[in-house]
């Protein structure tokens, strides 16, 4: 029974989150580091270069790394304070065993690993091989992501492995694959400043990808025009040439409406369309009814904005589309992305300097994490697990019989639903905190409580790890070595700065040791992450995401290498689709006609307000790391409910009042932040916090039928003014889920 062994406040008292405020050597200026390690930030998909200062096996500070081309020393506040996650009082330093009524007790690695292996065996023998599931994550290095996929198929032999990129990048990936045949941003970021029209759709760049801001502003210095679509006036929207305050879920109205106007005015490239694409006629037919007036009703904005957007985008000589979770986190997320990409293909502005598009990957290894085979439908090299040729090749690399590789399993939300339904009985997870990050938290908690066995590899006791039977003390990014693939498709090298503290171990060693206990030692005989990478290179060879020509040495020498890179002599591929060569067998881009459809849950008289969720600049994802760093918590200590003064007045709410935001599934009680920078029909609550402060208490468990991404960006709520809460959870520190 995976319930918390003692109360939440008792667990918080022991394991935090508590705040680290002081560097390992104090706020002294005179401490000379032993080493300065050139590496990368562990947080978002931009993977900024950073130098960590190390003394006596402790990370004591940072120094900007100005020579790394992507960020040239630039960092956001998370990157600056990232080193404060090291030498942290909450750090797990030994494996823990859940003891009912006592809490978690440290045990030996042998005891912990034996327990995990025997429970995997027991559950699979009792309920079948797929009754044990695995969850990976997109903060894992490529090496670890690869290892998770192999571990699932070769050691555990379950079909049910998926990863938390399912909550992040899959709509973008699916759309790109359908249109172009490759799931990757089409261009390096250096193309952004060369674009004369830029459309940022559903991306709060300033807070979620801050380093990209400079690229956008540089485009504008060069005379480029910026269009931003967002229900909230985000910091980049404030100074955009055109800000479109689109209703959440209304994006297709803007995209199809723009295309309608562009066709009418002759701003499409018919020669390109004829030579290099398929499916245009259906798109033209579909957007015929999307007059600005019709489109405006869907988008919830004045028709004139859609016309103006077409006037900026349509005739521009060069253009760049950037999209992110704002359009992707929908039950029509893939359609949203395809409708946006149609604007790129219709103008033929792709595959050359200053022309193309990118999805802004959210997680650290959001790109690489989705290529190496930890997705339920995928084998390494972004291969298809149902393709016989692909299976055969990977079976050869792994030295197993093809028929022993399981077929397609369940994706992340259906895995949780199968757990809830009693079909999956055991779970081993790493690099994710679903109790904060999955929609409909109450349902997810029920699911975790139904597991017969749950093990989590973690460096801090996250809100989810509290439900574990065994917690395996793993490693932070700076405690291990490996590669990630950044938002541009650039494969980069994370150097090891320090050893894991105490008895904590590198994640890959933990997985290999479990594999050995499951009788597969010979398939997991890796001496180092580099040995894993070398096998990954071979496994990816000939696949869409071909890493074969990439070595750690090359990455260091060239400051990153872009895939595909099929051979040692190959320079890598910063820009895809040059010469209008697309990755479908016919070499063409495939237009996808898109019709708008409503969200899974639209507003009604009972729940009349749209809730949209997202992030703030000083926190990262579920907050497991950033809610433990004092300076970042001080910057934004607790979630607020942003609402327009018109809505606030109607509800009798003033700035700073406590409000309950309530959907059919749950609620939060937080303070109101009354601002004119949001649509009056919409409220916003950031999602980094747990328990009674979790925005995902309200969100809806609806997923896109193609990508299976949850619909985080729209559900129906009501908002009421309430007294200050004083229960045991409310009294916790704010970083733990309390409220002040």
């Amino acid at each position, binding site marked *: 029974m995976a319930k918390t062994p003692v109360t939440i406040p008792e667990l918080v008292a022991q394991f935090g989150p508590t705040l680290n405020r*002081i560097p390992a050597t104090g*706020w*002294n*200026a005179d401490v000379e580091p032993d080493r300065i390690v050139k590496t990368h930030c562990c947080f978002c998909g931009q993977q900024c270069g950073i130098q960590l200062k190390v003394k006596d096996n402790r990370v004591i*500070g*940072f120094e*900007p790394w*100005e020579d790394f081309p992507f*960020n040239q*020393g*630039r*960092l*956001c*506040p998370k*990157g*600056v*304070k990232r080193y404060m996650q090291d030498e942290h009082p909450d750090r797990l330093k030994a494996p823990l065993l859940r003891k009912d009524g006592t809490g978690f007790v440290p045990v030996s690695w042998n005891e912990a690993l034996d327990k995990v292996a025997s429970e995997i065996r027991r559950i699979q023998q009792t309920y079948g091989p797929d009754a044990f599931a695995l969850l990976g994550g997109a903060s894992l290095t490529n090496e670890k992501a690869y290892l998770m996929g192999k571990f699932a198929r070769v050691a555990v032999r379950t079909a049910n492995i998926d990863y938390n990129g399912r909550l992040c990048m899959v709509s973008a990936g699916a759309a790109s694959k359908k249109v172009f045949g490759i799931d990757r941003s089409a261009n390096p970021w250096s193309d952004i400043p060369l674009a004369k029209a830029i459309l940022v759709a559903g991306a709060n760049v*300033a*807070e979620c990808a*801050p*380093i990209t*801001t*400079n690229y956008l*502003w*540089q485009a*504008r*210095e060069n005379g480029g025009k910026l269009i931003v679509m967002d229900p*909230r*006036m*985000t*910091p*980049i*929207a*404030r*100074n955009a040439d055109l*800000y479109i*305050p689109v209703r959440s879920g209304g994006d297709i109205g803007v995209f199809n409406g723009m295309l309608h106007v562009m066709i009418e005015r002759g701003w499409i490239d018919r020669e390109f369309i004829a030579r290099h694409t398929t499916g245009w006629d259906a798109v033209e037919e579909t957007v015929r009814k999307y007059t600005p007036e019709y489109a405006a009703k869907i988008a*919830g*904005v*004045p*028709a*004139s*904005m859609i016309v103006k957007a077409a006037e900026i985008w349509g005739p521009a000589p060069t253009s760049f589309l950037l999209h992110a979770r704002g359009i992707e986190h929908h039950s029509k997320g893939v359609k949203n992305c395809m409708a946006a990409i149609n604007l790129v293909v219709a103008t033929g502005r792709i595959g050359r300097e200053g022309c193309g598009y990118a999805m802004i990957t959210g997680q650290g290894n959001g790109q690489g994490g989705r290529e190496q085979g930890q997705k339920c439908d995928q084998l390494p090299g972004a291969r298809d697990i149902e393709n016989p040729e692909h299976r055969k090749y990977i079976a050869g690399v792994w030295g197993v019989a093809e028929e022993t590789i399981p077929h397609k399993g369940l994706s992340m939300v259906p895995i949780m639903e199968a757990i809830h339904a009693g079909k999956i009985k055991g779970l081993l997870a790493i690099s994710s905190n679903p109790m904060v990050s999955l929609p409909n938290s109450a349902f997810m908690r029920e699911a975790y409580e139904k597991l017969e066995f749950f093990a989590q590899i973690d460096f801090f006791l996250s809100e989810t790890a509290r439900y574990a039977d065994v917690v395996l003390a793993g490693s932070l990014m700076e405690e291990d070595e490996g590669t990630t693939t950044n938002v541009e498709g650039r494969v980069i090298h994370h150097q090891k700065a320090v050893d894991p503290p105490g008895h904590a171990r590198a994640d890959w060693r933990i997985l290999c040791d479990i594999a050995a206990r499951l009788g597969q030692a010979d398939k997991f005989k890796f001496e180092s992450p580099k040995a894993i990478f070398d096998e990954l290179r071979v496994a990816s060879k000939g696949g869409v995401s071909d890493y074969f020509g990439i070595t750690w040495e090359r990455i260091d020498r060239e400051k990153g290498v872009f895939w595909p890179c099929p051979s040692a002599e190959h320079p890598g591929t910063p820009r895809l689709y040059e010469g209008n060569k697309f990755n479908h067998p016919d070499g063409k881009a495939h237009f996808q006609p898109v019709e708008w459809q409503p969200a899974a849950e639209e507003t009604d008289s009972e729940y009349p307000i749209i809730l949209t969720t997202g992030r703030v*600049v*000083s926190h990262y994802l579920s907050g497991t790391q950033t809610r433990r760093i004092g*300076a*970042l918590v001080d*910057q934004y200590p607790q979630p607020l409910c942003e609402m*327009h*003064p*018109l809505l606030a007045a109607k509800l009798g709410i003033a*700035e700073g009042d406590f409000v309950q935001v309530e959907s059919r599934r749950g609620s939060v009680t937080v303070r109101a*932040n*009354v*601002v*004119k*920078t*949001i*649509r*009056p029909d919409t409220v916003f609550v950031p999602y980094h916090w747990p328990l009674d402060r979790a925005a995902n208490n309200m969100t809806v468990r609806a997923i896109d039928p193609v990508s299976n991404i949850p619909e985080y960006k729209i559900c129906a709520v009501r908002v009421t003014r309430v007294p200050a809460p004083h229960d045991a959870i409310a009294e916790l520190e704010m970083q733990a889920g309390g409220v002040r």
Partner: protein
Amino acid sequence: MNGAETMEFFIDHSRCIGCRACVQACEECDTHRGVSMIHLETIMRADSVQTAPQVCMHCEDPICAQVCPADAIKKTPDGVVQSSLKPRCIGCSNCVLACPFGVPKYKAEINQMMKCDMCYDRTSIGKRPMCATVCPSGALAFTTRENIERTRQGVAIREWQFGGEVVRTKVNVLVPRSVQKIDVSIEQIGTTTTDEYDVAKLLMGD
């Protein structure tokens, strides 16, 4: 001085995204580790997301030094106005009140005024100031004037008019090309209209 190679400090308020990377990084600077000297002002959050970073402008004739009764505020030969000298500072806060940019802050725990010194420890050894190195938006930049003129549409100016007083600063601000100096008259203060950022108004259309 070799003009082309001289590095200067530039602020472009229109680029600021309020991320506070500058504030977080400032306290990592060796001479005042643990204390941030840069100010990041949120202008009127209810009306707008506008924010503005404020480093010391390093006036040619620093008002903070003029009003200091203890002669505790010194300027380096290259024009950097430093924090108060510990042996001299009497903690009177004259400088705090007099600075037209609101930069110096009195630190009660050390009974001394401290302020941005343009990361003198870094700039004196050829590094860029911490804030201008990490700033993700380019709102803060430490580079050559030539580079700014080549890469930015605005014009860099460093002359301010506060009522009857003209103040020239070492630090530049980027403004539209039509502006020659920044005229801050008393009447302007508190009269900023911010309706242009009201999403409800935008939704009403033309």
